[in-house]
C-alpha cells in the first residue's frame, strides 16, 4: 500500500484516508507512513477510541544492558500516534506538519509492548494541539506523556 502511495499525489492520499475511515481501519493510515514500519507502530480502534501500540523489537533498544526502549523511539512513537490521530479523526486535507513537541519521561520503557492514546485538545484553523500518553502495564502508570502542535 505505502509503495503505491509514494508515486501518487494528494488526491490518492485523501482517497486512501477516506477508505481507511470507511473500513474503520486506522492501521491502514499507519501503513501509509514508512516510519511506522521502521519502529513497528500499529493502531486499532478500541472502545470507540484509537489505541496505538509498539511491540518490542531489538532494533528499538536504547540501553542494551537493562534493556530499555530508546527514549527517542518512545518520543517518535508518540509523535507518530498524534499525527495518526489527526489524520484519521479530523477532517483535514494534507499531511499535518509538526511544529513542536514536548515530552516528559516518567518511567523507563522496559523491553515489552508500549501502548498509547491521544487527545486532540484544541483544533483551530491552522493549529492543532494534541496530547499523547504512553504506558506499558497499566494505563494509570504512564511511562511518558507528550504534547505537540501540528499545522494543518
Amino acid at each position, binding site marked *: 500500500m*505505502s509503495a503505491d*502511495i*509514494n508515486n501518487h*499525489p*494528494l488526491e490518492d*492520499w485523501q482517497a486512501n484516508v477516506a477508505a481507511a475511515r470507511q473500513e474503520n481501519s486506522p492501521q491502514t493510515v499507519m501503513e*501509509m*507512513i*514508512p*516510519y511506522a*514500519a*521502521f*519502529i*513497528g507502530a500499529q493502531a486499532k480502534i478500541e472502545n470507540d477510541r484509537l489505541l496505538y501500540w509498539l*511491540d*518490542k*523489537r*531489538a*532494533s*528499538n*533498544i*536504547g*540501553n*542494551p*544492558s*537493562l*534493556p530499555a526502549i*530508546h*527514549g*527517542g*523511539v518512545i*518520543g*517518535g*512513537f508518540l*509523535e*507518530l500516534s498524534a*499525527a495518526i490521530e489527526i489524520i484519521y479523526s479530523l477532517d483535514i486535507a*494534507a*499531511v499535518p*506538519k*509538526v*511544529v*513542536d*513537541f*514536548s*515530552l*516528559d*519521561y516518567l518511567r*523507563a520503557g522496559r523491553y515489552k509492548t508500549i501502548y498509547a492514546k491521544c487527545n486532540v485538545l484544541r483544533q483551530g484553523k491552522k493549529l492543532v494541539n494534541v496530547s499523547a500518553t504512553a504506558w506499558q502495564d497499566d494505563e494509570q502508570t504512564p511511562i511518558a506523556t507528550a504534547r505537540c502542535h501540528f499545522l494543518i
Partner: protein
Amino acid sequence: MAFDMTMALFRPALKYAMEKNGHGKTLGLKMTGINRGEINLVFPYKEEVIGNPLTGVIHGGIIVSLLDTACGSAAMTVLNTPAVTPTIDLRLDYMHPAEPNKPIYVEAKVYRQTSNVIFCRGLAWQEDKENPIAHCVANFMKVDSKSINFSAIAITQLRRLMPWGQKSASSDQGAEK
C-alpha cells in the same frame, strides 16, 4: 588542554554503544565528535524513515531520536564515571522540514549542570547550521547506579569476532522482531 584519560577511555565505549547497538545501529547514525559536554553526530537520509510519503520528508520522530541520543550522550560525558543519565524531559521545536536525500547533522551541548540535573541544548541542521531544522532542550538526571555496563557490551561484541565465538544471530537480529 591536558590529556583527559576518562574521555580517552569513554569515547570509544560510547561510540560503540551508540553506533553498534539497538536503535542507534538501526538508524545508522555516526558519532563524529565526542568531547566533555559536547556531542556531534550525523544521520544519513533513509527512505525507511519517511513521515510524509507525499514529499519524502523524514518523520519528526527521527529528529527526536537523534537529539535524544546526542543530548543524552553529551550528558554522560560530563560524569566522571560512566552511568546512565535518564531523560527528564525533552522539548523540540521544528523550524522547517528536513530536505530529503541529505544527511542531518546534530550537535548537543551541556550548558549547565547541578548536583542532580544536567541541562542540554541540541541543534539539528542540514546544509546551514545558521538555518537549523530543529532545536531542542533536554534535561537529564544524575543517578548513582551504574546501569550501563560498557565493558560487558564490549566483551560480548569481541567474543563474536573471535573465530571460536558463536556466530551469533543477535548482531543481525536488529531488523527482525
